[in-house]
């Protein structure tokens, strides 16, 4: 699968997987923001329609679970509408939305991890929700587990760059870091994944 162009904020990412009739027409962000701030409820929906696919794809990649992804996308847009008056236009609206989405996702992942740790602590077997990595012979499953085990920052950069096709500059703007930091984190993420899949590489 070829990743969609992430630098086009209004192009539905991964459009091949979607019904084209749902793809929104290109819209002018500045005009939409003005209408939303003026209280036009139709503009809120238009803004949502213009960006929700991109946000959903990214959040789903991070969440790996439909219910969680839906919750986090909803939280992203609620926070975005609340903060829209403070959006200064330093970056594209899509980048700003993805920044909120990543923030919500990382916080959500921390919540999930804490909840999982509590469950594990309560469960004597200590295996609830976890399958030991070596136990599963399927490379894809193992890769999914290895991605999930990455530190949050590495995971976000790996998903954005290697899976969703963002550039380091876009990732830097979204995460509020330097492009060099994004490159370094991707380098380390890949090293962790190679290490996790080392025995498959030898086969």
């Amino acid at each position, binding site marked *: 699968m070829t990743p969609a162009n992430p630098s086009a904020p209004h192009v539905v990412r991964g459009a091949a997987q979607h019904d084209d009739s749902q793809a929104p027409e290109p819209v002018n962000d500045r005009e939409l923001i003005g209408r939303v701030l003026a209280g036009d409820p139709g503009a809120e929906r238009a803004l949502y329609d213009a960006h929700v696919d991109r946000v959903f794809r990214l959040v789903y990649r991070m969440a790996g679970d439909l219910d969680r992804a839906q919750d986090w996308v*909803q939280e992203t847009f609620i926070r975005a509408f609340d903060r829209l008056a403070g959006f200064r236009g330093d970056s594209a609206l899509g980048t700003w939305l993805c920044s909120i989405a990543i923030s919500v996702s990382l916080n959500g992942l921390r919540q999930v991890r804490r909840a999982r740790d509590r469950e594990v602590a309560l469960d004597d077997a200590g295996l609830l929700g976890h399958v030991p990595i070596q136990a599963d012979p399927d490379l894809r499953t193992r890769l999914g587990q290895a*991605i999930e085990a990455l530190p949050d920052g590495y995971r976000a950069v790996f998903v954005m760059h290697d899976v969703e096709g963002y550039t380091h500059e876009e990732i830097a703007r979204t995460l509020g870091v330097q492009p060099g930091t994004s490159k370094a984190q991707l380098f380390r993420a890949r090293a962790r994944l190679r290490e996790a899949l080392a025995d498959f590489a030898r086969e």
Partner: protein
Amino acid sequence: MPVHDDDRDPLDDRIRELARDVNVPPPTPRDEMWQAIASRRRARPARAPRPRWIPWAAAAAAVLAVGIGIGRLSVPEPSHPSPAVADAGPAPRVNATAYRLAAEEHLAQSEAFLTLFRASLERPGDHRLASATARQLLAGNRLLLDSPAARDEATRRLLEDLELVLAEIAQLSPGSPAQDLDLIRDGIERGDVLPRLRQAVPTGTALNHGAL
């Protein structure tokens, strides 16, 4: 260590290819999510728009209130007041320096508050006091945003970012989920709000005045 995209192990391509088949997003449930968003937003109380005249009138009052201690520093007494001025009695003299000092005072209080608040996030507790304090600071912040102090671009941006964080803290209630606290912490850190506040506040401001 310089890191380049080209520093790629042959296994990386295989991993990248496979990773695109992990957590493959289904079609966006856009209507379902929109209904939930609209419903959650409707359930919250709407914010009444502020009349334009109130911030200006209140800004002067706030500057006077905050500036009781600083007002005399901001406007040096003329050495030879004209008779007309002397006859007119004490006129309100709020100048740019007073606004700047009021802004510094406010930013110093906010910096101290956010530092304490962030530290309090490390332990569970009731954030009602923090919420009440944030509301007070938020009021001052809004006044300053509408004052000449906000004509300085850096100050205005800082006040805008601060407003978002304070508004989030002000909305905390005893029933707020832990995720709200995480998002606030993230908002403080992501916007570098505290370092920017510290940079904006001259050493010794506010805490020396017993602000908190």
